[in-house]
């Protein structure tokens, strides 16, 4: 079957391009907070992003990829015409990619996740018929788009309130920071490792019992917290930049914590966003291999590696520039605020990844930042921009859908 190779080749190409785009643009939102707060240098940020985006994609990206691959379109209706699914998924990749390019060129804040889901729903509803869409699943996804920023905002609010109470309002914030920051590190590391172990490791062949999973996660988190505690102990007040309350040094203590949450954020981003690029690819491959659609097998590792690799290439070729630019603009998010936002967002995203929900990492992070703002942590938030983000949220879905329908019609006419 020659067509099979054409399909897989095209899919891999488009998927790689999408992954490249995610690495080039999207990663910046996950990493720029850490660069802006000076917790990481740009080089360190790129290293962290490359390693943890890749790990996130490969270890924990499977669930969301499954959802994009087979959760939205009812493949049961396509038993006789599996090639329609191939056209549709190719069209969706093209549509999302095109829409993202248009939006980037105009500076519109749009989400990769929203465009790809909009595109898939669009081609399925129009190209295959309304009944071909798993509306229940789509409804869950759309609700998760509302819930995830709210959840992240709520968690960020609580975390930042605790920082105020335990550290910043105290008589000796520096001593308190040194005491509590390792605890925050422990919980940050615990959340990320626990979700990864519970949800991710099975498909790399490591199957632990529930108890052992918890023990392992607690062990890893404890080791990371210990390393953090040592690093924190070594921070001495810098006399020159200092006033009575030592807030400058306090922020440096939080900087250590932010290195951990930056890793978590990169991991979370990789785990959720890789699916936007390779979910459709996985769908096409399973059709091309088996000639049928329905197979519920796990996403093969090499597809995840392709996606993770694409993200890293995007990061290396272009993304680092964007990280630097965006980082310069986010100086208001000092480590004591930035970690709260990152930890809240990363936790929300990793849990969504574990349950297979494709959410927008950037919107979740924006929600978390607003949560810190509501706790009076941010000097100035521009509500007009928040409004614009909301509008683009609503517009992106029909735009992605429309483009997908156009590409689907073209591909159906052109491809064998």
């Amino acid at each position, binding site marked *: 079957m020659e067509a099979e190779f054409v399909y897989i080749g095209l899919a891999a190409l488009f998927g790689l391009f999408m992954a490249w785009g995610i690495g080039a643009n999207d990663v910046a939102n996950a990493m*720029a*907070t850490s660069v802006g707060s000076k917790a990481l240098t740009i080089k360190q940020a790129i290293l962290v992003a490359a390693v943890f985006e890749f790990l996130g994609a490969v270890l924990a990206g499977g669930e969301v990829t499954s959802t994009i691959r087979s959760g939205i379109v009812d493949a049961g209706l396509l038993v006789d015409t599996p090639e329609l699914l191939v056209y549709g998924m190719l069209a969706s990749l093209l549509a999302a990619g095109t829409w993202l390019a248009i939006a980037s060129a105009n500076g519109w804040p749009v989400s990769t996740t929203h465009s790809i889901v909009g595109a898939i729903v669009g081609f399925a509803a129009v190209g295959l018929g309304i009944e071909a869409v798993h509306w229940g699943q789509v409804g869950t996804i759309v609700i998760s788009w509302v819930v995830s920023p709210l959840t992240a905002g709520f968690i960020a609010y609580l975390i930042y309130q605790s920082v105020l109470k335990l550290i910043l309002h105290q008589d000796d914030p520096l001593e308190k920071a040194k005491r509590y920051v390792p605890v925050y590190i422990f919980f940050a590391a615990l959340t990320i490792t626990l979700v990864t172990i519970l949800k991710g490791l099975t498909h790399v062949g490591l199957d632990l019992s529930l108890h052992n999973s918890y023990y392992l996660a607690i062990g890893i988190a404890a080791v990371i917290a210990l390393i953090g505690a040592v690093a924190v102990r070594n921070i001495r007040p810098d006399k020159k930049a200092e006033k009575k*309350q030592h807030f400058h040094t306090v922020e440096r203590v939080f900087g250590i914590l932010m290195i951990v949450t930056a890793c978590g954020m990169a991991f979370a981003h990789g785990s959720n966003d890789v699916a936007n690029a390779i979910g459709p690819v996985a769908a096409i491959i399973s059709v091309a291999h088996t000639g049928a659609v329905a197979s519920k097998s796990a996403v093969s590792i090499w597809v995840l590696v392709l996606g993770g690799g694409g993200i890293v290439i995007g990061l290396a070729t272009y993304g680092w520039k964007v990280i630097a630019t965006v980082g310069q*603009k986010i100086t208001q998010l000092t480590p004591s605020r930035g970690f709260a936002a990152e930890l809240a967002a990363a936790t929300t995203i990793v849990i969504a990844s574990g349950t297979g929900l494709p959410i927008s990492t950037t919107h979740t992070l924006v929600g978390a930042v607003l949560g810190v703002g509501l706790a009076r942590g941010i000097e100035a938030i521009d509500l007009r921009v928040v409004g614009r983000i909301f509008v683009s949220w609503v517009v992106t879905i029909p735009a992605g859908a429309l483009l997908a329908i156009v590409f689907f019609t073209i591909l159906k006419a052109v491809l064998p």
Partner: protein
Amino acid sequence: MANMLANIFGSSPVVPLEKHMGIAFDCARQLRGFFAAVVAGNWDEAAAVRTQIVDLEREADKVKKEIRLHLSKSLFMPVPREDLLELLLVQDKIANRTKDVSGIVIGRKMVIPESIAELFLGFVDRNVAAAKQARKSVRELDELFTAGFRGNEVKLVTAMIEELDCIETETDDQQVALRAALFKIEADMNPIDVVFIYKVIDLTGEIADMAERVGRRLELLLSH
């Protein structure tokens, strides 16, 4: 797309407000040299200082306009925008009063009578000290934002404002003494000159008043 996150941060008014207060104090501080030159009858020196005062006042105005321009209504901040604008306004008045008072003195080539000169220079000195204490308090703004306007940092700033109030009370007492001293000798002086010396005393005293109002505005921020 990538700048979505960066753009939700509006330009923070905190550092510019501190900068503005710094310029306003720099302006007020010139009054020491200015009046020293006036008392010594060195009008060239006084004119040179006056030029500096005018420049600094203008710079303060420029920063004030910039802050207002960027402090748009769509900003969500931990403290009300109006309170920050009010703070900016009283800070600016410190520079304005400095310019006004130096303008009158230079315009009329006013001579401060020798018998009250020492009292007067001491009075100027404490008014400048009040402006300095106001600057010290405003410089804590960034720390206040960091601390979320609660806890120990608030105690620190409250203590600074109390100190500011003490200085202002001191200038009030000095002003009373100065007026009394002037009253004793006013019969022997040109009435118009006397009226203007009273005016100069009032305007100079307003520098400490404005500094105190900076403290009041800061207190309002603390109560949020």
